[in-house]
């Protein structure tokens, strides 16, 4: 059964179990009562049979049915005594008048008494006992009544005696009625009780639900106020919710921080534009001066546009809404192109570039645009953050079917805690704003998202000799040096 409501499920299943138990109990009561009653009846029948078989006599070589004589002389017995005797030798049948010519069942010719239910004249239920008997031999024929047919040549008879058990059957029917009523009543009481117990048991869960609903997950200081009388079974659930709330809080905190950082990163250049233009309009200037100031404002706006574009990229990547077109891309060519684009910046910073890029193509299945952005970010970062006059190293390798790119540069010392946050958007280890230098503070975060989307592993390493290395590892069997 598939129930939406746990409460209904519990009520039905527990109710069914209780119904089954009560029905079984009622049945046991019925069977026990019936068995006891019929045991009494059967014992009674057996006693009657013992007495009545003595009334079957063998007199003067003939059979005398004294039992019948006794019945016929007693009106009351004549109406209520049901006896039938078969002469097993001659086949003669003798019935009591109450049988009104009807046959009682000849169960089988055995010396052991057998019982059966019958329907008596008038439609009453009866219980019958049947047994093979031998007529009692009178003293003048034989000294002792015996069962040995062969010896005394007494014909075997079969005697069946029935008792009207209609009253007992009526009593059993009343018992069934009483039990059924009791069962129905018990079930009703049980269902109501079960429902009340379940409702009562669910109250702490409902209270907890209200507490959860009322808890403001947007409030970073919000905690789940656990009711003091919460059952132990719900503690685990509460722990799960507390963990969930902590995660939500963390995500909210990141969102808040991200929003604040975005606002901050945009406000500063915006202030620059506003101040530059305001200052330009303070006084009359010559055309050249105006041009310079407008160009300055234009440059800031261009950088802001770059930041906004990167934010859009980041947003699309973060929300997995960027489509990826996997095609064979030559990584060697991508690296050469990126380095060529950055040649001016490299010279400006007096850097040397050492490359270990195979002369042949290195094809991987990846997205051309995204991998270009990734390489641009990582090589651009290395060039921007390398100490002036030092070396930037770019190596492309394929070892055991794994393609990797290492980009290294010498720079200031990084603390471990800084490295842990380095992929966070707008994380700045020295609080410096680098938009002025053409950086947006989102490059590494963007790179991480691109790597996630392309299934590339991105690792950073900072060595003791102050060499910062970014390693990009492509998945196995993706290499095709050709």
């Amino acid at each position, binding site marked *: 059964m598939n129930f939406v409501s746990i409460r209904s499920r519990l009520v039905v299943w527990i109710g069914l179990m209780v119904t089954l138990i009560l029905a079984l109990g009622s049945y046991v009561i019925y069977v026990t009562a019936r068995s006891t009653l019929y045991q009494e009846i059967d014992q009674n029948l057996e006693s009657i049979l013992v007495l009545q078989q003595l009334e079957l006599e063998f007199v003067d070589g003939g059979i005398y049915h004294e039992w019948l004589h006794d019945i016929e002389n007693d009106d009351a017995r004549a109406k209520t005594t049901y006896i039938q005797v078969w002469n097993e030798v001659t086949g003669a049948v003798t019935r009591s008048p109450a049988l009104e010519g009807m046959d009682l069942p000849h169960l089988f010719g055995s010396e052991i008494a057998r019982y059966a239910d019958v329907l008596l004249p008038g439609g009453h239920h009866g219980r019958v006992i049947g047994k093979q008997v031998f007529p009692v031999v009178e003293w003048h024929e034989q000294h002792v009544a015996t069962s040995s047919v062969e010896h005394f040549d007494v014909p075997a008879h079969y005697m069946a005696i029935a008792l009207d058990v209609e009253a007992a059957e009526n009593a059993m029917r009343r018992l069934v009625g009483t039990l059924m009523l009791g069962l129905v009543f018990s079930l009703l009481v049980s269902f109501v009780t079960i429902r009340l117990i379940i409702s009562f048991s669910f109250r702490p869960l409902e209270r907890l639900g209200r507490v959860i609903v009322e808890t403001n997950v947007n409030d970073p200081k919000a905690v789940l106020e656990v009711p003091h009388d919460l059952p132990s079974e719900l503690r685990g659930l509460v722990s799960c919710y507390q963990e969930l709330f902590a995660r939500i809080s963390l995500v909210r905190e990141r969102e808040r921080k991200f929003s*604040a950082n975005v*606002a901050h990163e945009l*406000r500063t250049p915006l202030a620059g534009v*506003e101040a530059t233009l305001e200052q330009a309009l*303070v006084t009359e200037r010559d055309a050249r001066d105006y041009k310079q100031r407008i160009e300055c404002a234009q440059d800031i706006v261009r950088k802001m546009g770059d930041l906004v574009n990167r934010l859009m990229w980041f947003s699309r990547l973060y929300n997995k809404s960027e489509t990826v077109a996997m095609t064979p891309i030559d990584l060697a060519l991508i690296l050469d192109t990126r380095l060529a684009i950055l040649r001016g910046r490299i010279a400006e910073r007096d850097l040397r570039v050492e490359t270990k890029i195979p002369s042949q193509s290195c094809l991987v299945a990846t997205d051309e645009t995204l991998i270009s952005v990734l390489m641009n970010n990582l090589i651009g970062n290395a060039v921007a953050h390398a100490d002036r006059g030092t070396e930037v190293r770019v190596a492309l390798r394929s070892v055991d079917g794994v393609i990797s790119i290492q980009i290294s540069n010498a720079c200031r010392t990084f603390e471990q805690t800084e490295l842990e946050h380095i992929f966070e958007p707008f994380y700045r280890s020295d609080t410096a704003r680098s*938009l002025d230098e053409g950086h947006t503070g989102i490059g590494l975060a963007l790179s991480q998202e691109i790597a996630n989307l392309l299934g590339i592993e991105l690792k950073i390493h900072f060595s003791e000799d102050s060499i910062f290395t970014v390693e990009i590892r492509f998945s196995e069997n993706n290499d095709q040096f050709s």
Partner: protein
Amino acid sequence: MRILVVEDYSPLRKAMVESLETAGYAVDAAADGEEGLWYAQNHDYDTIVLDIMLPKMNGLKVLEAIRSEGKGVPMIIISARDSVEHRIEGLDAGADDYLIKPFALKELLARVRTQMRKAYGKTATRLVVGDLEIDLPAKRVGRGDEEVKLTAREYSLLEYLALREGEVVSRQEIWDHVYNYYEDASSNAVDVYIGYLRKKLGSKDGATYIQTRRGQGYLLEYQQE
């Protein structure tokens, strides 16, 4: 009046410096926290305009370091962080004002003037010395119905003396508050500008405004012969 601007974003820094200089202030500029702290520790400023997110040394640390030296120079924080918590953090660290980016340069100038008036115990925006009136927001000087035309430097010198009206101000103090770090003025530049100012203010009915205290400096005080 001398102002220090500590801001790492060069377009904004340049615009602020130019604006303040146009308004007649002597301005020094620093692009990071350490440089800003060095300027603040080694020179007297009438106001410091300080960004928070600075390379090398956070603006709040610069602020705390300056205050820990007992310097009461008015400090205005300029920051893109606009939350109440951030503003409280800045003001509690010892800032006198908090300006959120982006802002109009006119507002920055107004706040600088306000801080200067407060620093020198002046509440009015018009300073009156005898029949001389100095309109601080408009940076205009009038005597009676006449406007006295002054250069930016002359105005700055007069404003400083007016803010310290009744006090003898030494040449060094004038130098520190009217010239910036890079100005290579000759040793008697203060005396020369005092001379120019006296000439432009002139004397009416024999009244003088700038008094010389030999061996001590100058005093702005209206005196009638």
